C-alpha cells in the first residue's frame, strides 16, 4: 500500500515537473496565437450581433461577446489539458486528477489568466439530462481546481451537453473522447 502511495506521489511530482517545463517552454507562443484567433472570432461575432440588431430584434443586444468563440470548434490551450469522464459520471478519475494538478500549476504560474471550464457529454442520453451532466462535470472540475488553490473568481463554467462532440462517430472510442471537460482561456 505504502509503496503504491509513494509511486503515486512520484508520478504526480513527475507530472508537475513536466507541467512546469511545458509552462515555461511552449505555453507562451501557442497561447498567444490562439488568443489572436479568438479575437478574430470575437470580432466576427460583433458584426453579426450588429446585423441581427439591425434586423429588428429587441431585448437581446447585450453581449459577453468574448464567449462567442466557444461556438467555433473548441481549441484547448495546450497547457491546459482536457480531462475525460466515465458514462453518466462526473467524478474525477485519478488520471483526471493528475491532469488537473498539472493544470492548476499552470494556472498558478499564469495568475493573470481567467479560464472557462466547458463540460461535454457523449451523444448517448437525453439532451437535457446531458446538459445538466456536462455542467456537473465542469463544476466538479472547477471545485477540484479550487481545492488545489486556484482562485474561484478565475474559473467559470458552461455546459454544452452533447452538442459539440470532438469525434462525431458512434462508437465507444468516440464516446470516451467526447465525455470531457475542456479549459478555455478567456481573453
Amino acid at each position, binding site marked *: 500500500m505504502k509503496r503504491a502511495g509513494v509511486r503515486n506521489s512520484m508520478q504526480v511530482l513527475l507530472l508537475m515537473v513536466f507541467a512546469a517545463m511545458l509552462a515555461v517552454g511552449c505555453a507562451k507562443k501557442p497561447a498567444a496565437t490562439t488568443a489572436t484567433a479568438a479575437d478574430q472570432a470575437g470580432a466576427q461575432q460583433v458584426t*453579426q450581433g450588429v446585423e*441581427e440588431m439591425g*434586423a*429588428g*430584434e*429587441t*431585448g*437581446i443586444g*447585450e*453581449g*459577453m461577446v*468574448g*464567449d*462567442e468563440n*466557444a*461556438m467555433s470548434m473548441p481549441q484547448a490551450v495546450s497547457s491546459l489539458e482536457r480531462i475525460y469522464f466515465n458514462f*453518466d459520471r462526473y467524478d474525477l478519475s485519478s488520471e483526471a486528477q493528475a491532469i488537473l494538478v498539472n493544470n492548476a500549476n499552470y494556472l498558478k504560474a499564469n495568475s493573470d489568466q481567467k479560464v472557462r471550464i466547458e463540460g461535454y457529454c457523449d451523444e*448517448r*442520453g*437525453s*439532451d*437535457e*439530462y446531458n*446538459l*445538466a*451532466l456536462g*455542467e*456537473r462535470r465542469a*463544476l466538479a472540475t472547477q471545485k477540484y481546481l479550487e481545492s488545489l488553490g486556484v482562485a474561484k473568481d478565475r474559473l467559470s*463554467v*458552461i*455546459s*454544452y451537453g452533447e*452538442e459539440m462532440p470532438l469525434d462525431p462517430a458512434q462508437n465507444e472510442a468516440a464516446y470516451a473522447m467526447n465525455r470531457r471537460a475542456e479549459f478555455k482561456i478567456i481573453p
Partner: protein
Amino acid sequence: MRRFATLLFALLCLPATSVMAQIEVRAPGQQTIAVANTELLPLSGFPSPAIARELHEVMSYDLDMSGLFRQLDPASFLGDAKRLGLTSTQVDFNQWSLLGSEILIKGGYRMQGDRLLVEFRLFDVIHRQLLTGRSYSGYPGDVRTMAHKFADVILKSVTGKEGPFSSRIAYIDNRTGHKELYLMDTDGANSLRLTDHRSIVLNPDFSPNGREVIFTSYRPGNPDLYRKYLGTGQEARLSFKKGLNISARFKPDGREIALTQSESGNPELVLLGTDGSQRRRLTNHWGIDVDPSWSPAGDKLAFVSDRQGNPHIFVLDLLSGQTKRISNNGKYNATPAWSPDGDRIAFTRLEGNVFDIYTIRPDGTDERRLTFGPGNKEHPRWSPDGRFLVFSSDQDGGKGIYIMRADGTGMQRISATGGQSQHPAWSRQR
C-alpha cells in the same frame, strides 16, 4: 285490455315468426371505415388539376395517417365522382354503396382573382346524408392547409374528436451549419426557419395559444431561455440565470413556465412567470432534475431525476409537494411527455445503447413499449388530440422527425433529408 290484445296478436303471429336465439357478433368485420376520397372538381372557370391533385394528396395522406380509414381505389369510382353534385339529393348514393363506400368526400374549387375558394363535403353513404361541409378561402399557397383543416373536421365527424393535421411542429435543424429553430406542417411540408442565432438553439415548446415558442439558445454565451412571437418574429430573453436555463415547458393554462435552472449550482425545476419573473423553486435535491412535462390539469409535473442513482421518471404533485418515481424498469429513462388526455406519459428508455419510446400510466403501472427495430427514437411529444406522437430518430441515417400513432403503428418520417432534425414540439390546434 291493450296488453291482452298484444298478447293475442303475439300468439297469432307466433307460428309465422321464427324465434331465434340471440346472435352475437364479437368483432366488426370491417375494422376500417371505407372512404371514397374523390378529387375536387372546378366549381366554375378553368379546371386546375394541380390544385385538385394537391388537395387530394394531402387529404389522402392524412386519412391514411389516422389509421381510421380504408380508401377505395379511385379507379373503381363510377360516374358520380365526376359530377359536381354537392347536396345529398344530388349525390348518387347507390353508386357509392355499391362500391362498399361508407363515407364520401366530395367538393369543388374556384379561383376568384388571386384567391382560391375550396368547398369540401363529407357524406354518410349509409344514411345518405351530408355529415358536414366547409368552405375555405385563401391563396393558392394555402391549399395544403385547407385540406388539412378538412381532414381535421372529418376526424371530428367520425370520432367526435378533432384531428391535429392543421397544427404545426416546431423542431431544431442544423442544415445552415448551426442548430436553429424551424416550423413545419404535420406532414413535413412548408418548413420554415425561425431563428438566426448562429449558435445552438434547443428544445422548443409552444405556448398553449400557439402564438409563441420558447427555446434555449447559447447565443449570449450561456444556455438562456428565449421566447419568440410567431406573428411578429420578435424575440425576448426570458430567463438568463447563471448556468442552465433549459427544457422549458408552458403550463397548459399558459400562465407559467416550468424549466430547469442551475443557478444554485445544482439543476432544479423552477417556476417562471411568462414575463420571466422567478415564481418559485419546485425541487430541492442534490440530484439532476430536468425535462418537466405538465399534466393537462397543470397540477403535476413529470420530470427526469437521477436522485435515486440512474435517471428515472418522477411525478411531482405541485399541491402536496410529494414526488413519486413512476419508471421502475430499465436503467436510463428520460424525456417524459404527458398525454393531452392525461392518461399516459410517453418517455424514452436507453437500453443496449438505443433509445426506444414507451408509455406508462401516471401512477407507474401498465408500461408499454411502442417502438422497436434499429435506431434511436427520442424526444416524444404528443399531438394536441393525443392520437399521435412526434419524435426524432436516426433509423434512416441522419436524425429526422417522425410521427406515429399513439399505439406505435404507422411510423412515418416527415422531415426532409439533408439536415439533422431533432427536438420536435407539436402545437395545439389552430
